């Protein structure tokens, strides 16, 4: 395996808040706190930052955005030599570290921060498709009343259940196992056990998905700092090499659940098959080499479908694989979302998965996977680009 040419050297976050709970702080305030915390973690001064690598068009939830010049103004960052974002939305979260790598390997920048901040007081992301007026393409979608991302993905889920016999029991296992992982985490929003009864008695929001298949509505910010492998050696933390980072995807997935034109097998998937192929190819590893998987869990069935696309089980066998207990932290063959994920810890549009991946590779995670050497981190199954990241150990 090739050691990474860049490494993640700092992670930082604000506390996590329920929807509305981070007021009166602003997006700039929250993101700034996360950036400063990541610098402190790395042993860098904020004035060392010379690059910003965003995803989601540098958006910060519904109707808000982040801006490099505003960060420079308030944090006193003297000069930047790189400022760019991946297109589209949460599909790019893991890929933002790859964008940082591109800046560093090209020589454009040295210390690059990726950051996401989220507040939902102006609009709930779960209603975003009802809030934003239609354009000519979405006019073919919106009249049907699928008001949020989970509603849209419930249609993919139904097809997966039809084609492969996948059962809601698998989605329940994702929700319950991730809740179990959140219970001992001081920062987690959900720290009460989730029972089978809770799950099966929950309100159906977009059948086949119920309340507990949907991620949390939370607020906060997370920042991650990437620099060259050389520079990483002299910093405060054990460097976490970027073994491989990929973003993009195949036309067959494309706009995904905003389009619904995918061929049958791709329709009932996470759209990550192409990412997995490139990611493993560049890293020179397979699913069997991955020790912990931080899979973007906006909705529980998309975890099941990512397990298939990333080769932890065969296509169509994600349901029985999950129901067997394979993804549990305790006793599972591939621990998934050891931090509780977006279903139970906090939803910051994928950034908490990168933070957990870094902590697992440092050996400092709260739910540490023993002897973990490789962590897979994914961006959201969504409108392309989607993305993936493999983090490793410094040699």
């Amino acid at each position, binding site marked *: 395996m090739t050691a990474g040419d860049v490494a993640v050297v700092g992670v930082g976050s604000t506390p996590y808040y329920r929807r509305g709970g981070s007021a009166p702080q602003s997006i700039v305030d929250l993101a700034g706190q996360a950036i400063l915390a990541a610098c402190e973690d790395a042993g860098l001064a904020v004035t060392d930052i010379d690059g910003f690598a965003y995803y989601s068009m540098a958006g910060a939830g519904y109707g808000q955005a982040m801006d490099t010049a505003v960060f420079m103004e308030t944090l006193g960052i003297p000069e930047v030599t790189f400022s760019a974002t991946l297109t589209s939305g949460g599909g790019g979260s893991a890929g933002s570290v790859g964008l940082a790598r591109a800046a560093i390997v090209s020589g454009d920048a040295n210390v690059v921060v990726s950051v996401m901040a989220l507040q939902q007081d102006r609009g709930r992301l779960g*209603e975003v498709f*009802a*809030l934003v*007026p*239609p*354009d*000519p*393409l979405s*006019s*073919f*979608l*919106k*009249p*049907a*009343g*699928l*008001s949020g991302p989970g*509603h849209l993905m*419930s*249609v*993919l889920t*139904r*097809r997966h259940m*039809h084609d492969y016999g996948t059962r809601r029991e698998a989605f329940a296992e994702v929700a319950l196992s991730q809740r179990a992982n959140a219970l001992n985490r001081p920062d987690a929003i959900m720290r009460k056990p989730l029972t089978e009864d809770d799950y099966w008695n929950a*309100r*159906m*929001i*977009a*059948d*086949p*998905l119920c309340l507990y298949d949907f991620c949390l509505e939370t607020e906060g910010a997370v920042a991650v700092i990437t620099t060259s492998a050389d520079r990483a050696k002299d910093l405060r933390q054990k460097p976490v090499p970027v073994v491989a980072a990929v973003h993009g995807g195949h*036309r067959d997935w494309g706009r995904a659940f905003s389009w*619904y*034109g995918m061929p049958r097998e791709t*329709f009932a998937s996470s759209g990550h098959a192409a990412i997995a192929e490139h990611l493993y190819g560049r890293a020179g590893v397979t699913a069997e080499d991955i020790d912990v998987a931080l899979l973007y869990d906006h909705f529980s069935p998309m975890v099941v479908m990512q397990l298939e696309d990333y080769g932890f089980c065969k296509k169509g066998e994600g349901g029985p694989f999950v129901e067997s207990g394979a993804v549990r932290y305790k006793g599972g063959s591939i621990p998934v979302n050891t931090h509780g994920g977006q279903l139970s810890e906090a939803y910051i549009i994928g950034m908490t998965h990168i933070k957990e991946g870094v902590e697992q590779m440092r050996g400092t995670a709260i739910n540490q996977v023993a002897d973990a050497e490789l962590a897979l981190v994914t961006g959201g199954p969504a409108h392309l680009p989607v993305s993936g990241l493999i983090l490793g150990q410094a040699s």
Partner: protein
Amino acid sequence: MSAALATSLPAEIVQITTDAYTEPFWLAAKEDRLVAPKCADCGTFRLPPTPFCPECRSKAVDWTELSGRAEVFSYSVVHGFPGLPDITLVAAVLDLPDAPGARLIGNIVDVDPAVVHIGMPVTVQFSTISDGWKVPQFRPLD
């Protein structure tokens, strides 16, 4: 029948916008006709309408009138919409047998959601929304 019948959003809150590529679809819908753009060079259907044929890059389009028959490819039973907590919608992705490769998204209405299933044959009807436009909806084929 005990279950609430599936419906659609109130006409006044449903809006569309059009551009040069999509307008023929919506103008036909106003006349209760279901049409789809077929590449005039290679015969490939595409929806939504876009500037180029993705198979041959042609910009030439034959607007083809369809029978209105469709088949449920997948669907969701949606409970509630912002401001309408009690509404029940069946939102379906539909294959169009006479426009292979193109799909529409629409509500299946006046049906017990429990009887909807993948592969169910349905037929189009048109429902008025804001600004005098109409959207295609579907009902079970008798």
